[in-house]
Every structure is written in C-alpha cells, then in structure tokens.
C-alpha cells in the first residue's frame, strides 16, 4: 500500500524564500513576460519580438536560443519556461512557408496556457528605423483601440484583452500628467488586419488648461494578420478573472444617496422603556416607601430570573 507522500519541504532558508515568493498572492504585481524563438525564426520576427521586449523591458526576458517546437501543437515547453521565469505572458516567433513571419502571443494562468493567438507580421518597420527621440522606458502608455471590429469579433475581443494585458504595464493609483508621453494604437479592420502603431505625445499650448495633443511616430509599426487562435474556455477564463476578497470594496450597510446626492442613513433603535422614563420631578409624584420597596423586590426577582435563565442556557 503506498503511503501518503510527505510534502517536500525546502532544505535551505533561501529555497524556502523562493518557494514563498512563488506562492499565489491576493494582489499581484505586474506580469512578467518572456520572448523566445521557435523553429527557423525570420529576421523580421526576431527584430519584432526584440522591439516588443524593449517596450516591456523591466518586466520581460528575451531568450535568444532557438527552440524546436510548435506552440499550437505542444505547449509544454512554454509552460516549463514560464514556470522557470515566473512569467505569465509569452511571445514566440517563427517562420515557415505556410505561415511566414509568425508571432504567437499568449498568456498563462497557474502555469498552464490560457490564451494563445497567432499573428502574421505582414509589414514591419522597426523602432530603429524611426530616427527620433523615443519615450522613457517603463512609462505607462495610453492604449487606443480603433474600429468596431474589436467588439464584434470574439477572437479580436480576446486579443484586445491580451494586448492590454501585455502593454498596460501595471495598475497605478496616480499618474504624473507630464509623464503621459506614449500612445499605442491598435486599429482592427473587418478582414482581420490589425495595425499596431506607437507614437510619442507632445503636449502643445491650447490657450486652455487642457493641452493640445500632437503625435510623432516612434515605431515599431506592424501590420498584423490574425491567424489561428486557441482561447481559454469560459469556465477557465472566469476562474482566472476572479477578484480576491481583499480587492473588493467593502459595502457599507444602511447608507444610500438619493438623486440629489444627499446622504441617507437608516438607524435601527431598540424599543424604548416608557415605564422607566424620568419625567419632571414633583413632590406629588414622589413614590412612597411602600412603592419603593415593591419596585426593589420586583427588580430583585427579575435579576434572579435572568440569572437562572443564563444558567440554563449555559
């Protein structure tokens, strides 16, 4: 009979720390991403992934070694590498006659593949081909999704979520107004073409408080063609989108606001004992000694009964 296996414990303090840091947390930091090469990567895909890596830099790793695998057929290598690098996002570049300049973008949940979307880079202009000032590394970009196709097509809907997952960097409370200097634009057409553009914002005077926005393209500029997709089932996606209790706002009871914004509160009060109400003191209403005695006796009796009741309950 096999005995229940003992949980393998870390042998060193450092190993314990590493394992602890890998445990799921209610509030997660920015997702890490890895970029790797598949079978026969073309120069274009390699450069493209490098550019995306540059955009994502502090939270990304670029693996330059070629890997003989096809993500849509066997995803075990990606899962392994994501576990190793603690990454939740990945990009794979490959090139073949059937699928030229192939880029697979995807994300994992609990070290298993969640979504995987294949894109063909039909046209590409690298960041280095634009000779101008780039944006500061690590700044939070504005994300713009143009076109009605983003909402209509189910694959594109998921791709929109994937793109915002890739590029939104991390959740912030406040942002410096002068630090808004990067725009990523994703334009989708009905025939499955996605135009990826990146611009630098320059704020001009407008005579008002809000400045006028002028843009300058800084690259990369990519025309993607949507190819195969492998999306998570609704159950898994729902499980992945679960919000921990710590993040949910605590609802305050009995407080409401009406249409004018006035605060209303509902208060619950116990029943008032009128018999013991102290009214105006007058000589005529004074209790006689007999009455006082009676009240005292009653009080004693009540107390005794309450005590007995408590005893019984215990």
């Amino acid at each position: 009979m096999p005995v229940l296996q003992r949980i393998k414990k870390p042998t060193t303090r450092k190993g314990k720390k590493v394992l602890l840091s890998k445990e799921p947390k209610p509030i997660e930091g920015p997702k890490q991403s890895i970029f790797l090469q598949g079978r026969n990567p073309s120069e274009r895909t390699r450069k493209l992934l490098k550019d995306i890596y540059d955009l994502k830099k502090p939270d990304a790793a670029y693996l330059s070694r070629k890997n003989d695998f096809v993500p849509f057929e066997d995803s075990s290598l990606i899962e392994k590498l994501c576990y190793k690098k603690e990454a939740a996002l990945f990009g794979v570049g490959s090139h073949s006659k059937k699928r030229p300049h192939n880029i697979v973008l995807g994300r994992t949940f609990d070290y298993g593949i969640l979504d995987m979307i294949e894109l063909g880079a039909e046209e590409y202009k690298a960041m280095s081909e634009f000779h101008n000032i780039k944006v500061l590394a690590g700044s939070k970009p504005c994300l713009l999704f143009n076109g009605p196709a983003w909402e209509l097509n189910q694959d594109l809907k998921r791709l929109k979520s994937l793109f915002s997952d890739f590029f939104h960097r991390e959740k912030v409370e406040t942002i410096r107004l002068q630090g808004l200097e990067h725009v990523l634009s994703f334009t989708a057409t009905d025939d499955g073409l996605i135009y990826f553009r990146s611009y630098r914002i320059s704020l001009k005077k407008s005579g008002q408080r809000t400045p006028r926005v002028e843009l300058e393209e800084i690259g990369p500029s990519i025309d993607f063609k949507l190819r195969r997709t492998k999306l998570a089932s609704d159950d898994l996606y729902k499980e992945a989108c679960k919000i921990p209790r710590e993040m949910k706002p605590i609802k305050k009871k009995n407080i409401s606001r009406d249409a004018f914004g006035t605060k209303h509160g509902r208060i619950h009060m116990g029943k008032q004992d009128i018999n013991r109400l102290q009214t105006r003191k007058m000589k005529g209403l004074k209790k006689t000694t007999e009455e006082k005695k009676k009240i005292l006796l009653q009080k004693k009796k009540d107390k005794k009964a309450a005590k007995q009741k408590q005893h019984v309950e215990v």
Partner: protein
Amino acid sequence: MDIVNEILEREQKKADKYKPITVEKHLELEFDLGSLLASDTNDLDIKTLKTNKDSYLLALTRDNAQLLLNKVWELPTERIEEAIVVRLPQPTTILPRAKPVPVPKPLTKWQEFAKAKGINKKKKDKLQWDEQLQKWVPLYGFKKTAAEKEKNWLIEVPQNLDPMTDMYEKKAGEKSEKVAKNELQRLKNLARAKKVKIPRVGLPVTSDKASATQLSTAASVAKASTASLGKFQDKLPKEKEARGKGVHELIPGKERKRKAPIPTPAAEKEYNLNLLDNILSKRPKIDMDKAVAKSINEEEVKRSHEKKNMKPGLGKRKTQGKGNATNFSAKKPKAGKGKRAPNKKSTGRKRR
C-alpha cells in the same frame, strides 16, 4: 462698447493662434481611465486607410488620444514632490490573474479546537537555564539532546517496576510512539483537509477495488453481527469462514483466546510466586507534603477544640457587654468597602 469689442477681438485672435482641442465623433468613445484605455467603435474609413494608411492612422489616433487626455485632465489633481499628478479611478477592464486566488489553509483539528476555546499559542524561550547543568540549554536540537544525555547518565527504576527494566529503552520506546502518533495525526489532518474518507481505526483502503480476503472478511463480520452472533444465519453451500492474521479478532463473539494447556506443577509454582512477588513489591508511596499537612491540620483542630472547651479566665476578658463569645475574631470589623447600599442593613463599624 468699443473697449468690450476690442477685448473680445483680442481674445478671438489669441484663440485662433492655437489649434482646437475638441474632436467631433459620431459615437462617443468608451474610456477606461484606470488603465488609460479608450476604445473607438466608430466605423473606419476603409478607402483612405487603404490608400493613405500611415497619415490616416496618425490622424485617427491623434483625435482619440486628444479625447482620452481631455478626460484625464478633468480628473482631480494633486501635487506630490513638485509634480502634478492625477488620481486615476479603478480600472474597469478586468484582466485575468497570473495565478489563482489563494485560499486560506484549512485548520488542523487542534487549531480548530484552540480557536473554539480561545487558546492562544504561547511563545517559549529558545534557551532555558538548566539548574542542574548550570548552563543555558536550547529548547530543541542537538545541544538539547546532548544536555539530556548528560543529565540522564543514570535513571532511577521506579519501585513498582521490575528492577531489571532498561529505562533507556523504555524512554526511547515512548518517544518513538509519540512520533508515530504525531505522524498519524498529521496524515489525518491532511485527509480531513482534502475531504478523504478514512476509517476510524486501521489503514485506509487505497485501491477502489477491495481484495478477495478483504471481501470475505467483511462478509464474515457482517454475518456475525447479529444479536445472536450469527448463530441462526443461513449458510451458503461451500461457504468458508474468513481466515488470516487479525481476522479472528474482527469477528464478533470470537475474541476469546484458545484455552491454555494445563500447566506443569513447576510452571504453576513459578507463576504463583511471581504473582505474590508482584503484590508484595507494591509498596505504598508516601506523599511527604500531604502527610505533613495532614498532621498539622490535626494538631490545629485539636488545639481549637481545647480552646473552645476551656473555661473563661477570671476578669481577663474585655467584654463589650452584648458581644458574642463564639463570634469573636481578631479582625476589626470593616465597613462596606466603599460600596454603599442604603437599603441594606450592613453590619459596619459603629461610629461614635
């Protein structure tokens, strides 16, 4: 009026110098300011997109970026370290997590009990002063074991035990039993946490199919589990009772051991002598503290009895007239200790 017109004109000129910040759109954009995201659902101009791709995309993006930044600039601003920042609202787009939401660890049976009873874990000191060894001994670890070994170079055999018992072996056995019990409890806790059903005694069945011997044992036990221990149950043709190690004890009504053979006189004699020895070697233990306390108590009772029966001395007693002789105590009577009950007749100190 001239002045007003002049000012208005000047303002108009000033405004003309700048490009507008307003953008006309068919459908309003959807904003998620928390993640600085805007989605434009207006139809694209496919023709211009085909012919003049880059400039069209630039214009479209500029317009949308302008709209997004207009919204951002409307948000409440703050000043943090010489920089103007805006406070962003909560993001509305929900992105999937990287790892599942952590679930709290299930409590062990003891932890559950302690929680219900309000028992808190007390922290023990890592080092403790050992009076016998005159040094600090850790709570656990090899140094503790070494200290124990040094201390227990000799262990007394208690009076009620066989003088030839090896106390070291006995101690080691107790320890290993404790470890085994702890391990069993750990496994039980694990099973409870995973909601695995386990029998109250014995080992759990690991495979889903029981073996032939297990099944035949179960059948035998079931058959014997009546008020008359299965005496009146029908028998199948060629039915065999389960056999094997430990099976006999499981079947009700069969606990009795086989009768021992009649002993030889020598063996019987030895057995009886052993029994007698065992009884005689049981000496009563004397609890010194208890004995001393008992004798002191007896003495005191005796003294107080004598005191009561003694005739009162002549003229020595200071009487207070109506005072009760038996109710006398050396303590001064006290008042109500600050708690006054006006309705209660308290026997306080009489004030004059």
